């Protein structure tokens, strides 16, 4: 039996550890290399952890994510220039999902922009892209009156996700979470530790992302696990993180979006604000909008038991027409789902095609997304 695992290959860099590495090993987690970090892929099992997040709550160590401070008089102007969403819509305490775009309108990275104040922003970026993003930001920041700093090593980050998240976290903090809207954040103490707490997440559930000083990581981790135990909170790993985000149709950089896919093709027009004014990639995206897309990212289900994976080819009428970017067995929906770039003609829901899975043509159908939406 040989195993082909759909995870990142280990790079030549030394593997890095988050401040919670010991905590994961003590919990019996299976550890794997991911984007250069030694991280838990699972504790009890991906299906258990996925279902826990959908029905109760799960706690993820996401300390490998990158954080960048952008502070100064021209911080907003700069962020307007390098991202495709409209930063001027943010008020202090609000967050937007956005992208760093290339002049071709493709992705350097997707990210969250947190506005702390008119001259004070925090960017949260993908772990694997942190060095590249920081280099990109520094290059494009030349001439702007601002200070840019990679503060990733200062922060740990925990993601508490699931319908019980608010009742678990509330006793540990003073902020009133019941009133806290999605995509907003507060600065508050969690179990006495000064943190940023945002109502955000990568699972499609209600939840919170907790940013704390790296040295307080274990304090926070055990405090939240302790508060969550009566509610059925469990630690959850990378495998569940991937199945959860895919059910919720959230993009993964490197799989679904990269520097060859435009913001429009990636079905992310909702983060693109062409009317805000000049930004990197605006001309290319305006052109593409005028000409019309030739392909776009869509969701599909496969009807058989085989799972479509990243790289599998989509076939229609005997011709290869596209590629699967992400695919999995969806533990909550109990279906095989995935995302693929397909020609525009094949993208209306109900369109049928096949996927070449290890030499066999497996029937697939385009479905509306997200595959899963939480009850509100």
């Amino acid at each position: 039996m040989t195993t082909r695992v759909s995870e990142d290959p280990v790079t030549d860099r030394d593997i890095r550890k988050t401040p919670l590495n010991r905590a994961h090993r003590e919990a019996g987690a299976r550890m794997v290399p991911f984007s250069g970090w030694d991280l838990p892929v699972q504790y009890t099992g991906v299906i258990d952890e996925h279902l826990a997040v959908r029905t109760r709550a799960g706690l993820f160590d996401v300390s490998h994510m990158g954080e960048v401070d952008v502070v100064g008089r021209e911080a907003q102007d700069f962020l307007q220039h390098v991202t495709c969403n409209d930063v001027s819509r943010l008020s202090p305490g609000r967050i937007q999902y956005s992208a760093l775009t290339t002049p071709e309108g493709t992705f350097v990275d997707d990210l969250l922009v947190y506005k702390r104040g008119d001259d004070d922003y925090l960017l949260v970026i993908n772990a694997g892209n942190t060095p590249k993003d920081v280099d990109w930001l520094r290059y494009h920041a030349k001439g702007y009156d601002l200070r840019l700093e990679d503060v990733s090593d200062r922060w740990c980050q925990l993601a508490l996700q699931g319908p019980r998240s608010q009742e678990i976290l509330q006793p540990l903090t003073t902020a009133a979470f019941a009133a806290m809207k999605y995509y907003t954040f507060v600065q508050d103490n969690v179990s006495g530790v000064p943190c940023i707490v945002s109502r955000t997440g990568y699972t499609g559930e209600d939840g919170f992302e907790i940013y704390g000083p790296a040295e307080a990581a274990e304090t926070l981790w055990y405090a939240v696990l302790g508060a969550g135990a009566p509610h059925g909170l469990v630690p959850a790993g990378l495998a569940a993180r991937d199945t959860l985000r895919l059910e919720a149709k959230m993009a993964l950089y490197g799989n679904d979006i990269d520097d060859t896919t435009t913001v429009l093709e990636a079905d992310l027009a909702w983060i693109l604000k062409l009317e805000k004014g000049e930004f990197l990639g605006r001309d290319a995206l305006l052109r593409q909008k005028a000409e019309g897309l030739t392909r776009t990212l869509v969701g599909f289900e496969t009807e058989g038991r085989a799972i479509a994976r990243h790289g599998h080819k989509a076939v229609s009428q005997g011709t290869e027409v596209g590629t699967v970017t992400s695919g999995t067995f969806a533990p909550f929906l109990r279906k095989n789902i995935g995302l693929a770039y397909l020609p525009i003609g094949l993208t209306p829901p109900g369109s049928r095609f096949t996927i070449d899975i290890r030499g066999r043509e497996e029937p697939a159908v385009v479905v509306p997304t997200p595959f899963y939406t939480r009850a509100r």
Partner: protein
Amino acid sequence: MFPNDRRYTKEHEWVKVEGQAATVGITDFAQKELGDIVFVELPEIGRAFALGEVLGTIESVKAVSELYAPVSGTISAVNTLLSDKPETINLDAHETGWICKLTLAKLGELDELMDAATYAKLAAG
């Protein structure tokens, strides 16, 4: 840990022989490595396989694994329980999670395989 009534391959399969009938599965070590198994592609009854040929695949949420024939033979039965409940392999890889049965083509191939003690060392790393 690993039952003594069978032999093991480097690819983490086990094969239990009774006369000319061999039952094949993957080890408990292998199922832990794979994680939650969601699909098993079983071989066709009646098909002949040479030692080392791909018998089928075992798909977990994160990974796909090929199952290799530990011995040469013809498929006489497959565990149809795995079509509905592939997770049986996770729960009991050595007994109810058996994958297929073969009628042996040659008897000598078993000597090349590991006993339980030797395999335990391999699994321990």
